[in-house]
């Protein structure tokens, strides 16, 4: 098993390499002179000054040299300096990363708490009104724009009922939890419909397998068969889909952080776009991709623990 994990980690390296190459390319695709973009707020610079800054930043070096320097700087945790705040980009990102993680993890928990029971119940009651209701719920889940759902929650629970704060993040633990409710519920909508559908179909599939029929045939109770025999195997495809859709969840987080003024890296990136703070934008995008890669790797390793068939391959 250690060998399997090691192989997965090694396979990850070219991907990380590719992703950093992509963000490097992204930086160089930006039209216009980087020095002028960086100094956009300052006074007009003379040609000589521009040349000196270019030389200092190494922008006159050939691209391969710049690329190697970009990678070594990244390894040292140096992502450059933000035009807007004049502080290290890596500092800005690490400051705000926990907020994005808290938001996404809370949303995943909400998705599991809601989608699993609904999907499984729908499979067990196949063809009844419960099934129809659950699938209609799932259909709306995939068809409602999540950010608009957030605006509606804001309107109802923030403005009309005045139960919850609509914008920003609370300082005290209780305030913090209260301010987390609306954004995380909104974000959970991104995966809710899909996971409900997958939970249902995966449970239906397992229920049709021979070993489940055998368990029933030898007289085990319905509850025991459904939850002890069928459910554990039905959970594996659900894990696959949640991990596979983690990227989509992060994408949703960017928009939803902006809607609710949640101070994560998604909002950091969007605000940076309008400030033309390109280093913040590209590095945040890189951090998002690295998060996706790590989560997928973690899921693969998790599989070896929960599914012995992989362990013995």
């Amino acid at each position: 098993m250690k060998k399997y994990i090691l192989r997965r980690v090694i396979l990850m390296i070219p991907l990380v390499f590719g992703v950093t190459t992509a963000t490097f390319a992204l930086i160089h695709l930006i039209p216009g002179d980087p020095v002028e973009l960086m100094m956009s707020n300052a006074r007009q610079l003379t040609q000589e000054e521009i040349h000196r800054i270019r030389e200092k930043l190494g922008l006159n070096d050939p691209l391969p040299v710049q690329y190697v320097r970009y990678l070594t700087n990244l390894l040292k945790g140096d992502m450059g300096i933000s035009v807007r705040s004049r502080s290290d980009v890596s500092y800005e990102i690490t400051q705000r990363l926990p907020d994005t993680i808290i938001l996404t993890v809370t949303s995943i928990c909400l998705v599991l708490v809601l989608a699993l029971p609904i999907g499984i119940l729908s499979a067990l009651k196949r063809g009844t009104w419960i099934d129809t209701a659950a699938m209609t719920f799932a259909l709306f889940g995939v068809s409602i724009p999540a950010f608009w759902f957030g605006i509606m929650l804001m309107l109802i629970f923030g403005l009309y009922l005045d139960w919850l704060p609509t914008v920003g993040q609370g300082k005290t633990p209780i305030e913090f939890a209260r301010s987390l409710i609306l954004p995380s519920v909104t974000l959970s909508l991104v995966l809710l419909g899909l996971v409900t559908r997958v939970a249902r179909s995966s449970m239906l599939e397992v229920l049709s397998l021979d070993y489940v029929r055998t368990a029933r045939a030898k007289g085990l109770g319905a509850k025991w068969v459904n939850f002890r025999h069928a459910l554990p195997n039905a959970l594996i495809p659900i894990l696959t889909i949640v991990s596979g859709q983690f990227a989509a969840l992060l994408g949703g987080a960017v928009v939803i952080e902006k809607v609710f003024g949640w101070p994560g890296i998604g909002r950091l990136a969007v605000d940076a776009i309008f400030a033309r703070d390109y280093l913040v934008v590209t590095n945040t995008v890189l951090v998002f991709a690295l998060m996706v890669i790590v989560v997928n790797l973690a899921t693969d390793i998790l599989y070896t623990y929960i599914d012995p068939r992989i362990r013995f391959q």
Partner: protein
Amino acid sequence: MAENIVELAPDVELTEVIRPKSFSVIAAQQFIRNGRALLGIAVLLVLVLAAVFADQIAPYDPYKTNYTNVKQPPSAEHVIGTDELGRDSFSRLIYGARVSLMIGVVVSAFSTTIGVALGVVAGFFGGKVDMVIMRLVDIIMSFPLLVLAIALVAVFGPSLNNLMAALGFVYWVVFTRLVRGMVLSLRETEYIVGARAIGATDFAIIFNHILPNVFPVVVVLASFSVAEAILAAAALSYLGLGAQPPTAEWGSMLSNAKELMRILPVMSIAPGVAIMITVLAINFIGDALRDALDPTLRH
């Protein structure tokens, strides 16, 4: 077999009984029998007509500002009120259908074409071409697609065209991955090995045997991708990275409405409902297409 059929139905012509219905006929019948699909088509038809004939249908010019009539609540003249510049929100909503449907169709067409072409090439020819294409797919898929689209729009500048290009650029990977997998297994089937044996060219095999086989699945995925593109485009426009003012677009209307949430909640509600109805209609059609075209689900 033939004997049995004659016995069971002696007065029916033999040829009529044993002629099987073609795949497309069964699929079409299934599709038409699906009530949701028809509802989806009807709704979508209304939206398309509204988009095409927006000039005739819209009660007002969506760009005509009227400073004596701003931020009006819904009334007989203005069904869902007017915005902060006195423009009629309902007219803007109708024109918004144009933008959203166009984005959905263009992005889907673009990503389907590129994605299927590269998927077929990767799966059929294999080797280095396959490696290069699939590594590119892996890299793009490591990014949250919406984030990558946002970054591309940020780099090239926010505009409707850049939005469509960015979304098209990130969505093709979904098609490529799926089509490549299908082509890999198709390549080993006996009829394609047979076609090769009788000297069919690669070109002929791809067009006569590969494409018709991947077509049903691609159609289903393409229909869902229209819905996804509309949702993504609305989100990006909401962030200010898509349609630019004064373009009447549902996502940017929602971002306009935010400041007026307290006094004019209808402006925050209506465009979202419009997006939801459009996406629901397309998803109805997509679900029905999947049920009709996917033989593994046909029971």
